[in-house]
């Protein structure tokens, strides 16, 4: 059964190749359709990757994210819009519905245009915070571009972010220096679903260009707390990405020459690569994990190796295997766990009885099989084989297979004569039986004696 399913999945994958793993319908929201010229390279890049793009303005009546309760787009790209609100078709609830319906959103902010209120309240729900009254400019007096922003210092030049932490795969670092022109920073809440991609340098900070022109008294955020590009991956693996500066995706900055302050040579920005990486991730072209099949079976000699039985017995030896693939750009490749990270299997009832490392065994062209063998605990009950692999930038893998673990049946215990301790008792039984029989015979054959007795009495 599982094999069949996984086969079908494979077929679909084959059909859906060369585009995102979750559909190709991309909606771009912008103030005026004419504005797309400014992002032509970025959009052409997306189209080149197989997305068919629809352009809408927030106000248009034809715009609706759902048709008969089904998503009518797979991804949304928000480019900055002047309007204060986004109209009735893009209320926060609808956008949240879109996320819950497993749609991906790539949101771009800009310090020059105020962020729409519905976007702000959506971000609040996601525990992402923007500067007060949607005004904020990120500056850094030590890492700015000396050519374009020599006095405003609002074009940050950043090194590729690198891995978020040890054991997390890095998707975004194949760019050279990244230019971050007049962007708006965000701060992230404590949620585990949130992960920053690009953070401001230690000396960067965000201030309100309208009010705090002279002195910055109340700082919104600074340093690594100020996230410039941040991501949120929902429990259903829908992805929501915030890019602090829309301009960094524009043609102007794709092929701009920048010169970091204090340095001699001017270099070309790596924005195009970074844009590819971030959009590819946002639209589920990278970092998508797929479970091809899960299988567990008895691992004892003599036992029939039926696959995925519903019930085991305590102290059985079992083997559990799971086959995983990772989608990168246009095809599925074998998934390899990042070093210093483990793929773990839990065998749990209420709490985990076993927590084991799954080791790669078979590796095929597009999948790796991880498996582990162990002995079931001496406790009957309803257990779960649980693989719960949730890492930043990877889609969530939660595989729960429920099995019952029964007790020993009445004929599965060792026989009494096999237990040396029972021999005295067995001997006792034998002795009793023979003694009884002997007594009976003696009794029967001593009948004449009985008559003599009676004579005597007489």
């Amino acid at each position: 059964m599982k094999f069949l399913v996984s086969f079908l999945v494979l077929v679909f994958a084959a059909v859906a190749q060369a585009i995102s793993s979750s559909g190709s319908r991309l909606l771009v929201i912008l103030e005026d359709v004419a504005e797309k010229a400014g992002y032509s390279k970025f959009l052409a890049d997306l189209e080149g990757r197989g997305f068919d793009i629809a352009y809408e303005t927030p106000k248009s009546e034809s715009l609706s994210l759902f048709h008969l309760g089904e998503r009518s787009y797979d991804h949304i790209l928000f480019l900055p819009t002047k309007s204060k609100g986004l109209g009735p078709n893009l209320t926060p609830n609808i956008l949240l519905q879109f996320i819950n319906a497993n749609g991906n959103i790539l949101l771009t902010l800009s310090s020059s245009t105020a962020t729409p209120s519905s976007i702000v309240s959506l971000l609040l729900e996601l525990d992402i915070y923007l500067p007060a009254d949607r005004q904020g400019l990120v500056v850094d007096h030590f890492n700015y571009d000396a050519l374009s922003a020599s006095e405003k210092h609002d074009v940050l030049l950043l090194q590729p972010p690198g891995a978020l932490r040890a054991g997390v795969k890095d998707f975004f670092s194949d760019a050279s220096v990244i230019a971050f022109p007049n962007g708006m920073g965000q701060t992230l809440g404590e949620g585990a679903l949130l992960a920053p991609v690009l953070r401001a340098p230690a000396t960067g900070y965000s201030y309100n260009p309208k009010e705090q022109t002279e002195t910055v008294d109340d700082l919104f955020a600074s340093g690594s707390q100020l996230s410039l590009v941040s991501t949120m991956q929902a429990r259903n693996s829908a992805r929501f990405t915030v890019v602090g500066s829309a301009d960094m995706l524009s043609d102007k900055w794709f092929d701009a020459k920048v010169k970091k302050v204090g340095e001699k040579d001017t270099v070309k920005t790596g924005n195009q690569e970074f844009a590819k990486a971030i959009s590819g991730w946002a639209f589920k072209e990278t970092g998508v994990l797929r479970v091809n099949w899960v299988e567990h079976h008895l691992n004892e000699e003599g036992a029939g190796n039926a696959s995925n039985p519903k019930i085991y017995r305590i102290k059985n030896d079992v083997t559990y295997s799971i086959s995983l693939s990772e989608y990168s750009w246009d095809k599925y490749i074998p998934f390899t766990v990042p070093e210093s990270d483990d793929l773990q299997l839990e065998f749990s009832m209420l709490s985990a009885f076993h927590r084991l490392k799954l080791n790669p065994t078979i590796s095929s062209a597009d999948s790796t099989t991880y498996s582990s063998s162990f002995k079931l605990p001496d406790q009957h009950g309803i257990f779960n084989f649980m693989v719960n692999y949730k890492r930043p930038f990877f889609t969530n893998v939660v595989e729960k297979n429920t099995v019952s673990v029964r007790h020993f049946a009445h004929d599965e215990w060792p026989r009494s004569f096999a237990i040396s301790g029972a021999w005295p008792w067995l001997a006792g039984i034998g002795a009793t039986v023979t003694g009884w029989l002997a007594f009976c015979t003696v009794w029967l054959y001593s009948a004449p004696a009985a008559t003599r007795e009676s004579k005597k009495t007489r």
Partner: protein
Amino acid sequence: MAVATDASSAPMELLVSVGKNQSTKTLLRVLILCFIAAAAVASRLFSVIRFESIIHEFDPWFNFRATKYLVAHGFYDFWNWFDDRTWHPLGRVTGGTLYPGLMVTSGAIYHALRALTVPVDIRNICVLLAPAFSGLTAFAAYLLTNEMTTSSSAGLLAAAFMGITPGYISRSVAGSYDNEAIAIFLLVYTFYLWIKALKVGSVMWGALCALFYGYMVASWGGYAFITCLIPLHAFVLVCMGRFSNRLYVAYNTWYALGTLASMQIPFVGFAPVSTSEHMPALGIFGFLQLVAFLEYVRSAVPSRQFQTFLYVGLGGVFGVALLGLVGLTTGGYIAPWSGRFYSLWDTSYAKIHIPIIASVSEHQPTAWPAFFFDLNMLIWLFPAGVYMCFQKLEDEHVFVIVYALFGSYFAGVMVRLMLTLTPVVCVAAAIAASQLLDTYLVYKSPVAPEAKEEEVTDGTAKKSKQSALRSTSQPVVGIYTLISKGFIAGAMTLFLLIFVQHCTWVTSNAYSSPSVVLASRMPDGSQHIIDDYREAYQWLRQNTKEDAKIMSWWDYGYQIGGMADRPTLVDNNTWNNTHIATVGKAMSSREEVSYPIMRQHEVDYVLVVFGGLLGYSGDDINKFLWMVRIAEGIWPDEVKERDYFTPRGEYRVDSEASETMKNSLMYKMSYYNYCSLFPPGQAQDRVRGVRLPDQGPVLNTLEEAYTSENWIIRIYKVKDLDNVGRDHALAASFDRGNKKKKAGKKRGPRVLRAE
């Protein structure tokens, strides 16, 4: 009705047919017994006729499910049955923790009928098993009574009483498919065989007794009653100086074989040699060996002093053995009385230590109306019969007396044990009634003078004067005048008729409703069936996943398993107090506390019973305090019974209710959306008879899934975690449309992200 005429006229017929040949009598008896059995079965069919052929309240549903499993999978799978659809996620080793007798019996009947090519649904067998066995019970009572008295009518009377007395019908109407259904028959029949073995002193009867004792052990936990009563009988006999080889043979045969037989049941296992309930039997076993030995020595050694010495020694050994038993028990080598059993002696024990036992309604003590309700006139014929057993005090009469005393004590302590009292009441009352009738239904009047001699010869008092009853010192003469005969006979007949009427009335009114379906009267007097339970269970069966875990209070576990066929967390087999306390905690805590518990136990739906709309008093709010108490037993710091009362110590659900009460999950689930039924300010709870606040409770972590027609059953679905990681309160408020304020500022000290 038929029973009455049979029962009361049976002696008359017999007396009239005195002098006719034996075969007529036998034919009459067989006929009467058949009528009695028919009446016994018939009077138990009210529930089927009124409602339908349905399994009744709670435990029967489990027995029914187990029987279906047995029939479907065969005996060995049943024997090793691991049930993964109850007590989720612990599961239950059902094959090893139940008394298989009932299921095996009906399974055997099923297969037998199949073999006879009689296609019959297993459900009908289960429904009609109890009535069928009630007929057998009547027959067993007949046999037992015939062992007690020479009067030929007593047995038939006893059979009639046993057949229709409500005390036994209460547990054996059609559809109450419970262990008692067959256990009572086995109880009476085992006692009959015991008496038989004791009188005859033969190994065969003793072995038969042991056999049926084994069957009894396989059928009902109440076998401990036999296990304690027979040794007691033997002990009393020895103390009365009535030790005999018959007693020795009967008891040893019964004990040795019976104990072996009982140890074959996995649920009993080694209890017969390791728990206190069984120690009397063991002790008396050893005691009898001693006594037998001493008897032998006594017969061998003539000297008087030596005998007294021996008896003193015997007493000493007995005392030492008793002390040793106490020592072993305190030392923990022998398990002390199990809770249920112990609470029979120390009546305040359960209330303090085992709230689960105390919470069961049938473990409450018995008020006197219950006795009269269940036994009617037998309750006062009973002492008379016991007194008459003192007339010629044979061994079997001693048994009746001992049984009567202990049976009435237990019945007084626990309502359900009325069941074990009923047989002896029937027997004793039959002895009394038959003696009355035999005396006053004699047609020929005695003539005073020459009546004496032959009367004296068969006069009842054969014992020496000082030990005989004072009332039986004179020889029996007989009744002279026809008036007195007519008067008493008429009165007795009248009483018997009333008895039959009473039994029929009680059976039809009190004991024939399957508490699954509630019956109520319409204003115009017509009957209206309230079928919410089955409605809700059917909804579960049709609208939820095959393995959706249902959390409810344990009372409904068996029904959910049987009718809805869904896994439950706890059920009426209350083997794991902690698990029940966990459910109690989840029910009685705030949502924020309950939700993790329900997630951990993979609960999908929560089911509560709410009678507020209909005035159905047996609902969960009324049981709520028990949930709190049981939870408090395990988590004294987190759940406190006192918090559920108002400062003035009242248990209220209206606007005065304590905060803990209002925030408890049970309260919220019961009254969620309830006030929307009424015009504002009119919301009212018809059970508690209070007016509810207009602002109903708010549920964040649950959503209402189903509510039955009369709101008796309410089912809630447990929400999944929020998709974007908010807590449920926030998510709910966002869905209600009020935007979250810009929390960034007013979060006080800003939380810094580690990464």
